[in-house]
């Protein structure tokens, strides 16, 4: 009986940890959404999928590189901190990158160096932690088509709405001309059905 009680107590602790982990994921993400700064990243989506987490569109951002003339110590796949600002049109712009966590601002995001082009122009290419936007199974492929159609028209602009706080980032939405890609695909599906 004592053994059973002990086992049940250990099970309760494990169950609490199992609940705590997803809860912490939610709290951290909600904190970034509520108190982080909003950035619009100009982007282009494509459509692969993930066996466990479902369909998503991969985003490729225009602001994914920065020229570095003084510091040439960047290594592929190392973790770096990207300090962000806004350009004159209100979109996200990389201000600088650092090997170390910045102390004087909250507007930075933890990224990986994709590659460092030291032969040509000294550009550091970055991989953001918010390149996947999960969508309903039937909508992800259509979202890519919608993007491709909108890309032909240079007047249209696609961007990702991302909240950033002290290295963490949460991708909130992908928009084409300020309308969520989910809404656009839904409208298209309704049109097709009618």
């Amino acid at each position: 009986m004592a053994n059973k009680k002990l086992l049940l107590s250990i099970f309760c602790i494990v169950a609490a940890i199992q609940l705590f982990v997803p809860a912490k994921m939610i709290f951290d993400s909600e904190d970034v959404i509520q108190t982080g700064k909003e950035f619009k990243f100009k982007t282009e989506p494509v459509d692969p999928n993930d066996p466990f987490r479902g369909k998503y569109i991969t985003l490729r951002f225009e602001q994914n590189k920065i020229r570095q003339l003084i510091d040439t110590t960047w290594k592929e796949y190392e973790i770096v901190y990207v300090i962000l600002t806004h350009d004159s049109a209100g979109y996200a712009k990389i201000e600088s990158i650092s090997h170390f966590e910045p102390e004087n601002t909250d507007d930075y995001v933890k990224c990986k160096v994709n590659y460092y082009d030291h032969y040509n122009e000294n550009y550091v290419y970055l991989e953001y932690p918010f390149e996947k936007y999960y969508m309903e199974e039937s909508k992800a492929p259509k979202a890519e088509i919608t993007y491709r159609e909108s890309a032909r028209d240079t007047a249209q602009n696609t961007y990702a709405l991302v909240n950033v706080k002290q290295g963490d980032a949460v991708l909130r939405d992908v928009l084409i001309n300020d309308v969520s890609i989910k809404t656009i695909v839904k409208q298209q599906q309704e049109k097709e059905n009618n």
Partner: protein
Amino acid sequence: MNLLEDIPELIKANVISEETAEKIKEYYKSKGSQSQQKIVIVFSVLGAILVGLGIILIIAHNWDNFSTSLKTVLAFLPLLIGQILCGYTLYKKSSNIAWKESCSAFLFFGVGASISLISQIYNLSGELSSFLLLWLFLCLPIIYIMQSSVASLLYITLSTYYLGEACYWHYPNSESYYYWLLLLLILPHYYHLYKHKAHSNFTTFHHWLIPLSIVFSLGSIANHHDRFMYLPYATLFGLFYIIGNSHYFKTKKSSNNGYFILGSLGTSYILISLSFDDYWERLRNNSYVFSEVMSSPEMISALLLFIISAISFWKHKQHVAHKEFNLSSIVFILFPFIFLIGLYTKIPTVLINLLIMAIGILNIRKGAKTDHLGILNYGLLMISTLVICRFFDTDMSYVIRGILFVSVGIGFFLANFLMLKKRKENGK
């Protein structure tokens, strides 16, 4: 013949007493309930796995019509249901295997479903391998608390998938050390099964899944000296062969002895692929820095495996009569020497061809002696494969090669025919 139906007749004819008849009835009754219990376990576990996988697929659909808060509540639902079921099982049904195994399997998928859905809601696009690692660590305690072998089998399968994700299928590859830690953490459960549930089907599945997972994963340690990977693999197969021949496994059917089958096939595969000179030529033509090679992960793992294999071999030797030894079990000891010679000379090709020939002949002899057609044909198959391989890379004349083929073919017929004839005569 149904013995239970014949019992009254047997009592009437005074073949068995009333007391013996009762004992026979009791025996069949308990046997029947045991097999019924097994069926219940199989179906409840299958049911739990299917429901769990189904939930993950439903979640993967990603329901846009649901609000974030509803999705968040739903994310916790499978996890909570699994936890409640496991808690109830621990409290009320702790001796019921079907409950334990199926609830554990459900909770295993519940954990995965929950973190998947939250990753989806907040677009957390971390690597799939990190997601799998988090899932595995959260599920590890279930195996020990619930004493669940299904959870353990799912854990080993997912750990292997994790390794594939982290090391083989995507660039950049990351280190595989977490896999070895995950494997180490499951060993106490495996040891418990080995000690206390030696005849359980779950234990047999472990005897296959664990060596298969290791064979799949060992390649991930290859770094800059992947040409030397033959060494750790040869030693690993040698170790499997020794384990498969140990006292514990010797009494098991071959189909229940994953170590023996993988050890034998693996050793043969390595020997056959190294019987060509191409590999050795590339090895000779490259220059190596000794200290670099010796400190490479390939060599360190080979050394570690060699120490473990040598200890197992020495322990095994103490329990077995000398004449029972099989050449395959010492291939791993000969291998480092053959490798060393191979760095400078052409001799290894000859040595390995001789080794395959010797193993083949010894297997034929053993098969004939023990009246085992499987072992006999395995030996013949090794020699035939050797002859076929030599067909492609030697300068022998067509006539000689033709004669060799015909001889091996006749050997196959003759050996099988003689053995079947011997069996018939013995039967008479």
